[in-house]
């Protein structure tokens, strides 16, 4: 009976993509000159497990290509070949090719065979060079045992007696006993005898079942861990005994000296550098152990399940607050007890809600991980020397936010590489280091996550920006603009389209798109720059998109939620600060600014309690650096609200960002402040908002 493997395909793809990410990360470290056996092992493991998986699912093209790759990696791993930049480059491209192949397979599309074949030829060519190098290892390997033997090894015939009885499923899991034996033979002289006791008659034999066993004698003074490492992949599904030839005592001593020979991470770490320096061992073992822990303690859950959970918790919170409201007017001794029990319930509910929220959080490294490659590739292409520094990459953010900041960040980093960091000779001439530095820094600050992209390049040329802005009529000559305002001009739509200031931007997509994307997330973007020293772009993002800090405001019978991030202040209006503008509309003087007044009741066509500005309240709200006064009847409480989409069952409505459930179970609408402000944006109003020179 055959098993339906297709159900595992998605898991395989998902895991493979993740594995490829870690392979890429390791390769980039390699290219940075950190040649480390553990890194090569990581890369090898990725290739090996993808090969195994692909073979299991009969994705032959992937398996075949990965096999070639694996062969090259194996040579690197065993030290037969030195890591060279050229090889890393090919490996990186191979990783991309594997990703493309897997993607194509996943979507049942055709694989770009030509590209793969070309890459494969390249791999073959590199390995072809090996003709001479491949011969070298046996020579190179020989002195090592000899030296070790000289150093006072036990007198008995040095070597290992290995009994290897694979489990029946070994072949199905993509392991090849022959490869294992071949690998052993690279360690020393091998004498193999087959144990065919389990072989059944030809009529009942199943070619996918492994029934053979082997007795292997491996001669030479070889590290036990090195031997064990060969079996690393088969270890869990075979009976394996490795005994020292000529004496149990020495074998016992040997294995005691090895820290936990059975635990895979530790063994790997120990094998990492067979003849290398000692001091490197402990940290590596530690990091391996840590990774193992991180992997062991997690499960995969679909985002829908979490959202369902979140929904249910949201409902519970509402039910709980309905209960509290019902209990409030009660009197008597029991009522007091009820209320304190309800208060306790509320605390638990909050804790529960927060925990569920946290489930959706992922470290920002998911986004940051793509940058080492980007910086490397783009830097290389432009001939710039750039170092990328990443800090705070464990800062957690909601998955939805994470998915949406990727592109804006890529844009910003590309800008920094392209226009920020200067060419090496220019840098040296300016008295800076040849290497430019771009740093990505993420941290928490007051319920927000801040992400900063900093470069130590040339900085923004304010004079050029101003000149360009004047040309385009974005600003007028009459007013003196503050530095901040000038810098913010680069966010103006259309500013960075055509022949723009080369120091700032110049690519197709402008900074206005970046800002819009950030604003859509409820975030905020700021720019700081010092000419000649570099620039910093600071992005402030909400922790989550699912919850919003809201101020409830009442107009007539309706209650609206205003996101607190967009509220600057709330004031009571006095008559002398209001001016009517010819052609309708009113403006309000707030210190040196004139702000348009938006009457929510007329915008939404509802009956308010007050129509006179003096009776209600004016909320000064801000978006995109523009402000308006929003006229409402009354402010109510502030609360965290769960954002619900209006579009799920309805459609987008002008001026509304969504809806939420209030404590009494009713729906309240959330105002879309940027949308409302844009609506009130006309050229005349823009003019009114520019500050008057005092």
């Amino acid at each position, binding site marked *: 009976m055959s098993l339906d493997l297709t159900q595992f395909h998605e898991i395989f793809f998902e895991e493979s993509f993740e594995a490829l990410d870690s392979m890429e990360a390791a390769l980039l470290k390699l290219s940075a000159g950190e040649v480390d056996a553990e890194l090569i092992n990581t890369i090898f493991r990725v290739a090996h497990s993808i090969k195994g998986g692909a073979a299991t699912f009969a994705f032959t093209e992937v398996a075949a290509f990965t096999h070639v790759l694996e062969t090259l990696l194996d040579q690197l791993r065993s030290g037969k070949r030195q890591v060279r930049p050229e090889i890393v480059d090919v490996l990186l491209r191979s990783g991309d090719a594997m990703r493309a192949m897997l993607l194509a397979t996943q979507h049942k599309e055709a694989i770009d065979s030509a590209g793969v074949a070309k890459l494969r030829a390249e791999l073959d060519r590199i390995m072809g060079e090996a003709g001479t190098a491949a011969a070298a290892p046996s020579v190179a390997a020989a002195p090592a045992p000899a030296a070790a033997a000289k150093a006072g090894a036990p007198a008995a015939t040095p070597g290992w007696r290995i009994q290897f009885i694979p489990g029946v499923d070994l072949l199905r899991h993509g392991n090849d006993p022959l490869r294992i034996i071949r690998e052993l033979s690279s360690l020393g002289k091998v004498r193999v005898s087959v144990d065919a006791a389990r072989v059944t008659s030809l009529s009942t034999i199943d070619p996918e079942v492994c029934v053979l066993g082997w007795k292997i004698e491996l001669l030479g003074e070889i590290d036990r861990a090195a031997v064990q490492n060969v079996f690393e992949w088969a270890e869990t599904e075979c009976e394996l005994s490795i005994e020292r030839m000529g004496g149990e005592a020495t074998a016992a001593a040997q294995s005691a000296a090895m820290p936990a020979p059975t635990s895979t991470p530790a063994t790997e770490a120990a094998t990492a550098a067979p003849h290398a320096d000692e001091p490197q061992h402990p940290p590596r073992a530690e990091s391996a152990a840590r990774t193992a822990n991180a992997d062991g303690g997690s499960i995969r859950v679909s985002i829908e399940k979490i959202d369902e959970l979140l929904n249910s918790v949201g409902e519970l919170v509402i039910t709980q607050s309905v209960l509290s409201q019902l209990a409030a007017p009660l009197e008597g001794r029991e009522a007091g007890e009820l209320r304190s029990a309800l208060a306790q319930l509320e605390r638990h509910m909050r804790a529960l809600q927060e925990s569920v929220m946290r489930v959706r959080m992922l470290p920002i490294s998911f986004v940051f991980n793509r940058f080492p490659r980007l910086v490397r590739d783009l830097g290389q292409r432009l001939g710039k020397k750039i170092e990328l520094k990443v800090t705070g990459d464990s800062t957690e953010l909601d998955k939805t936010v994470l998915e949406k900041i990727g592109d804006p960040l890529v844009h910003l980093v590309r800008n920094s590489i392209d226009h920020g960091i200067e060419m090496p000779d220019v840098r040296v001439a300016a008295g800076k280091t040849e290497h430019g530095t771009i740093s990505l820094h993420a941290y928490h600050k007051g319920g927000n996550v801040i992400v900063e992209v900093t470069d130590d390049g040339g900085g923004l040329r304010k004079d050029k920006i101003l000149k360009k802005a004047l040309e385009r009529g974005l600003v007028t000559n009459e007013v003196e603009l503050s530095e901040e305002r000038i810098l913010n001009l680069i966010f103006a739509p259309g500013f960075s389209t055509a022949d723009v200031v080369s120091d700032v931007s110049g690519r197709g997509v402008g900074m206005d798109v970046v800002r819009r994307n950030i604003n859509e997330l409820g975030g905020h973007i700021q720019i700081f720059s010092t000419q000649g020293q570099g620039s910093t772009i600071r992005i402030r993002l909400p922790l989550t998109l699912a919850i919003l800090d809201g101020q409830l405001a009442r107009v007539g019978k309706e209650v609206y939620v205003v996101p607190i991030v967009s509220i600057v202040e709330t004031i009571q209006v006095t008559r002398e600060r209001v001016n009517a503008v010819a052609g309708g509309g009113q403006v309000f003087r707030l210190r040196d600014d004139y702000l348009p007044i938006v009457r929510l009741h007329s915008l939404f066509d509802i009956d308010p309690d007050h129509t006179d500005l003096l009776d209600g309240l004016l909320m000064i709200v801000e978006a995109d650096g523009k402000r308006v006064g929003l006229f409402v009847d009354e402010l109510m409480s502030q609360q965290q609200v769960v954002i619900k989409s209006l579009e799920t069952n309805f459609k987008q409505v002008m001026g509304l960002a969504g*809806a939420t459930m209030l404590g009494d179970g009713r729906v309240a609408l959330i105002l879309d402040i940027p949308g409302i402000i844009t609506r009130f944006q006309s050229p005349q109003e823009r003019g009114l908002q520019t500050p008057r020179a005092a």
Partner: protein
Amino acid sequence: MSTSPPASSVLDGADTQQFLTFKLAGEEYGVGILTVQEIRGWSRVTKVPHTPDWLLGVINLRGVVVPIIDLRLKFNFANAEYNEFTVVIILTVATRVVGVVVDGVSDVITLAAAQIKPAPSLGTGADTRHIIGFGTLDERMRILMDVEKLMAGADMGLVDEAIH
């Protein structure tokens, strides 16, 4: 949220079909039973600005924001009252959930294909695209409605892609 299978109220040649019938201004109407998610009493709605009169607003249906449409206003019937008999039928239309206010729910009827007569042309001006036909049972006539077509109407904009 209950998951009623996405159902089409269009006749597909099956022998019989079930309809939920309800009253609107004295007339009896029917919708395919499979589009009905639940029936609930009238509760206060939150008004949504910039929407037509017949869109009363939205309610909270166990954590989901659901728009409520008053079919009496939509069909220009006079006096839409809200009393203890006023009922909201929650319908699943394509992937969306919509509530419609009616004067009262009557019954579930089973009609054979032969009992359903196509809608005649009602002359210019009357839009009958959302009417499947007229079903007759026990000498009483019901107007059978295709909910998806009704909601997909240009002014409703509740179903993005016209399904049929």
